[in-house]
């Protein structure tokens, strides 16, 4: 492998598949957070997100040659795998709501005023609830767009539909969120 290939996702994946643990670590650390965040926001629970992230990376290694860098980035590929595993989990459990305790919002420290902090905490919880209550297809589109900052084309690649459908889903998700968060709108504007 040429030098420039060694640090690309494809190069790292090939070395990792051959038993190079350092390469695997590098690859894992590069994409771990994105996959975990995505899974957490889809599933709403830390444990479930951990399982999905774990399975996602192991499946990547087991079929390392199935990844084609000309078709999609590894991140998109991993997010698609995470999505698939998440849906499998939904189906297996026969439910779509897996609520853990709401995560401690790190941003809250930014609010010095206790009242603002309280309002922000309340809003954060409401946002989490509102996102988790969205239909799964709208939820994933919103998460990928707003949190993972994927382009419409990338989201289309992950979800296996065309960009227009993604756009429609995003629109509906935003409408749904606005409705759900209407009581907090004023509060959110204040903080």
């Amino acid at each position, binding site marked *: 492998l040429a030098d420039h290939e060694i640090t690309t996702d494809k190069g790292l994946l090939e070395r990792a598949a051959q038993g190079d643990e350092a390469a695997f670590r590098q690859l894992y650390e590069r994409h771990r957070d994105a996959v975990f965040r995505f899974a957490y926001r889809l599933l709403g629970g830390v444990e479930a997100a951990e399982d999905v992230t774990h399975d996602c990376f192991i499946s990547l290694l087991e079929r390392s040659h199935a990844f084609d860098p000309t078709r999609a980035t590894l991140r998109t590929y991993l997010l698609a*795998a995470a999505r698939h595993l998440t849906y499998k989990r939904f189906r297996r459990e026969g439910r779509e709501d897996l609520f853990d305790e709401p995560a401690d919002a790190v*941003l809250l420290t930014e609010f010095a005023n206790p009242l603002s902090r309280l309002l922000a905490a309340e809003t954060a919880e409401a946002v989490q609830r509102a996102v988790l209550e969205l239909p799964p297809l709208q939820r994933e589109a919103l998460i990928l767009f707003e949190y993972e900052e994927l382009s419409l084309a990338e989201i289309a690649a992950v979800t296996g539909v065309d960009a227009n459908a993604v756009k429609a889903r995003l629109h509906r998700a935003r409408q749904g*969120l606005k409705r759900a968060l209407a009581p907090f709108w004023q509060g959110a504007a204040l903080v």
Partner: protein
Amino acid sequence: LNEENEMSFSGETVLQDALALWVTPATPPALDARVLASYRRLMAAREFLAESPRTQATLDQTMEGTMKQCPNCGEDFAPAFSFCPVDGAALAATGLLYTRPEYHLTVLEETGLTRRLGREIGLLKAQLKQAWPGFKRDPLGFTKGALAAASAWFVQLFRVPHVATATVFAVLLVMSLSLAVILADGYRRRAAQQDGLVITELINLNDIPKPEEPEKEGPAGNNKGDGGGSKPKYEKPQGGGGGGDVNETRETSQGETPPMSRDPQVVVPKVEPPLDRPVLLPVTPTLKGDEALSKMPRDLQFGDPDSQSTDPSRGKGEGEGFGGGKGTGAGDGAGAGQGPGRGENIGGGDPNYGGGGPGKGGGKPSKPAVDYNREFSVKEVDRKAVIISKPEPPYTEEARKAAASGTVTLRVLLGANGAVLQITPLTRLPYGLTEQAVAAARKLRFTPAQKDGRNVAQWVQLQYDFNLY
């Protein structure tokens, strides 16, 4: 791109700000360790498989490609499948990796046994259904193929790391345990033989019957006719006999009653003392009846055991016996037996050989096992429980307002110790009247029921009437 910008910046910053508030927790460090451990395991397994090219080839063949999905039922399938076994539709590739199921060392599952059994049977049924056409077409070839597949599976199973070691270890463990048991048993037998004893049978201590309580000596048959007899179940003995001298004016003299015998009476008992002269063929004087009802024959003077008279007299009866009756027996009846009855045996009425009950019948019959601690019904007890006081339940305020009336029926267990043990309402009334009735029933006072002379618990049914006048 313009569209995206539009979506991002179309005055929806408030929504984005709100969304930004939902912060995900940091990726747990435990996950890193878990993923790395799985990575190492996977690599070790690969190394192992690389050493056995055949297995690798088989695996590659079956695991090649991506996951497939049924367009109808949406179920995921491994790459090796081409058609959905449920609806027969051609499977479409999902473009996702096939994840080999994790290898679990244990077979412990959370689902219940019956559910798992049902699942297995369902699977077997489906497999048989699938296999049937192939078998029908070429039974011999199919069997051969199945055997080859089974042996291949077996070989593959033992190639999995540690399976062979674990199997050998398990077999050795069970064998050594069995050997140890056999050796220990042999050693114990030898030791016992050295002591001059041979173990013929091991007796479970629980199997040894407890020594039976000695049968209480009950009253033997008597003139009242409530004695027992030699039959296994209690049956009232009946019959009787009597005799006496028509010319006699004195009452029957005091003495023992002669022994009973079912054989025909040979010698009629006399009240006179035995003659002091040699008898060529001594025959014991008997009364005709159940042997179980009489005492051992004694060479004593016969007569009426209840009499006060010591003056030898056969009584005012008629016949060869003694007492006020007729015939060759004893007592006021007629016949060869004893008592006020007729014919033979003891007691009153027409002859009937009786049977023993607890404490009756001279103890010969066995006592039927009765658990006196159980609950008895009214019909089962000898003497019913008698309620001494039955406090009336007061009306509740609500019931009075609602003008409720009716009857509460309770089933009450009156304990052997005189306490109310249990109350079950059979019919209820609203407004707390049932509770009032139950409370009143708790205050019942009664004398416990009896069975065979013992206090026992007995169920009764009580009614509490609630009426507003």
